[in-house]
């Protein structure tokens, strides 16, 4: 679980701090305000911290190499150089990326725009990890990242290719593939709640996906079996969530945060409620969720299904440009989301319709 993120001179951000809910976080903003970057950097740092904290005998050089490779792995900067992720034209020192945990332990790094560093680890000016002694991050606590484009339909043969060749997929895709490919965990390691989520997903999809290994995925409904590719993209997204629970990659209360980029993309509006229900259910089991969205339908369902009595908590984070600088407004109250780019976009749509009505 991550308490906050601080970014300075990193990609599109000058100076930004986001305080996260320990349950559900929704990142909103118009294109170009860095929603996906927020998700990716949180994922990379969470993952890097997990790896460097797990081995106290790791050398400083190894820690820097791992940390750097996590960030360049998810962002895929030009020429794979970490320095290219420093904000162009930024002043005031190095780029800084830092995450903070609930017990105030921090993990962060800083780097400059050095493009000449021989290995990316060299580009890191300062790597600070105050979790070495104070917090042991369990190996299981790996985060999960679900990208906007579902991967089930093009996984066949990909795991082998990725091992051998330099492909253009960023680490979020290859990590997810690995998490889908591993065998299912013992049912006793799942909970009643996660089993209920899996049952609900099977009901919505009217079937389930079968992972045969090597990236081969089929879909079983009644007594028939189909190629995953002929199923609806929305079902493949839900199937991804199902499989992550099945393999134990997603283990509420045990594993790391879930990051989901545009969970609503290509999802039938009728299925959005099911996704929101599943996410609330995961959050009730202490799963931290951070998602990015443009979709009014999705945020509205979060508002409508919110139940304070069962411990629900949602924080809305709006990224917006203020004189060229990206800032964030965070609120726990749906009515207080300001600015509200999603509402504004729908307002604009209906204003146009109104002009035509007149």
């Amino acid at each position, binding site marked *: 679980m991550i308490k906050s993120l601080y970014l300075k001179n990193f990609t599109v951000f000058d100076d930004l701090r986001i305080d996260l809910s320990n349950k559900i976080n929704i990142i909103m903003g118009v294109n170009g305000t860095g929603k996906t970057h927020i998700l990716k950097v949180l994922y990379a740092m969470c993952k890097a911290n997990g790896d460097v904290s797990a081995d106290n005998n790791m050398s400083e050089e190894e820690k820097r190499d791992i940390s750097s490779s996590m960030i360049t792995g998810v962002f895929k900067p030009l020429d794979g150089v970490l320095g290219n992720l420093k904000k162009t034209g930024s002043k005031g020192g190095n780029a800084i990326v830092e995450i903070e945990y609930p017990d105030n332990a921090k993990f962060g790094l800083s780097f400059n725009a050095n493009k000449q560093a021989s290995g990316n680890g060299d580009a890191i000016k300062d790597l600070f990890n105050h979790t070495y002694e104070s917090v042991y991050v369990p190996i299981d606590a790996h985060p999960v990242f679900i990208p906007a484009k579902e991967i089930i339909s093009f996984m066949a043969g990909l795991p082998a290719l990725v091992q051998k060749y330099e492909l253009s997929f960023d680490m979020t895709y290859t990590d997810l593939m690995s998490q889908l490919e591993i065998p299912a965990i013992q049912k006793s390691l799942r909970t009643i709640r996660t089993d209920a989520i899996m049952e609900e997903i099977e009901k919505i999809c009217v079937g389930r996906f079968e992972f045969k290994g090597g990236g081969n995925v089929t879909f079983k409904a009644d007594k028939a079996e189909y190629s995953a590719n002929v199923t609806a993209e929305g079902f493949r997204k839900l199937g991804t969530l199902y499989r992550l629970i099945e393999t134990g990659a997603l283990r509420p209360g045990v594993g790391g945060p879930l990051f989901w980029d545009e969970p609503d993309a290509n999802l039938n509006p009728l299925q959005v409620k099911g996704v929101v229900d599943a996410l609330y259910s995961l959050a009730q089991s202490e799963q931290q969720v951070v998602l990015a969205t443009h979709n009014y339908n999705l945020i*509205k369902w979060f508002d409508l299904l919110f139940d304070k009595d069962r411990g629900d908590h949602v924080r809305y984070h709006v990224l917006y440009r203020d004189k060229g600088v990206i800032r964030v407004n965070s609120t726990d109250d749906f*009515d207080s989301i300001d600015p509200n780019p999603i*509402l504004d976009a*729908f307002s604009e749509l209906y204003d146009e319709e109104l002009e035509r009505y007149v």
Partner: protein
Amino acid sequence: MDYIEKDLELFPESTLRVIKFDDPHTHGLTSFDMKAVDFILEYPDKYVYLELKDPDSPDSRAGGVRRFIADYKTGALKTKLSKKYRDTFIYRWAQNKADKPIHYYVLICWDFLDVPKYNLLTDSLKKHLPRRSEKWRRKFAEKCVVLSLTDWNKQFPDCIIRRRSLMGHH
């Protein structure tokens, strides 16, 4: 007693107390710049403030729609609706009748509106009220809904609203 607002008429069950609130002969505040919602419904566990907007009224069809659109486009609609709520709240508070949760319903009879638009209007109005604040100990409005006549009648079968012109009244 009749509960009539131009072409719309309320038919509350006998057990439900309804007040025609926006009546200058009774509220005594015409010399002040205070606005009022059209009706108040008094339930055992809540008050419902009801404001009726009727662009589809046969009395003023084209004019009604034009005025409504003008108010909507300029933002005057949200301002008027939230002022009606706030002023009504103050009046009722002074009467010692702010002791129950208050639900604010704005009924807009206009064929242009559909479910997504009603949702949008609801969210826009909620931002304008406001309903609550982290620093407040009570909610200013328990609920705030903009809805159609059909949805009002579904949610409030004990206070059906009908169009008088369709019942043969003029």
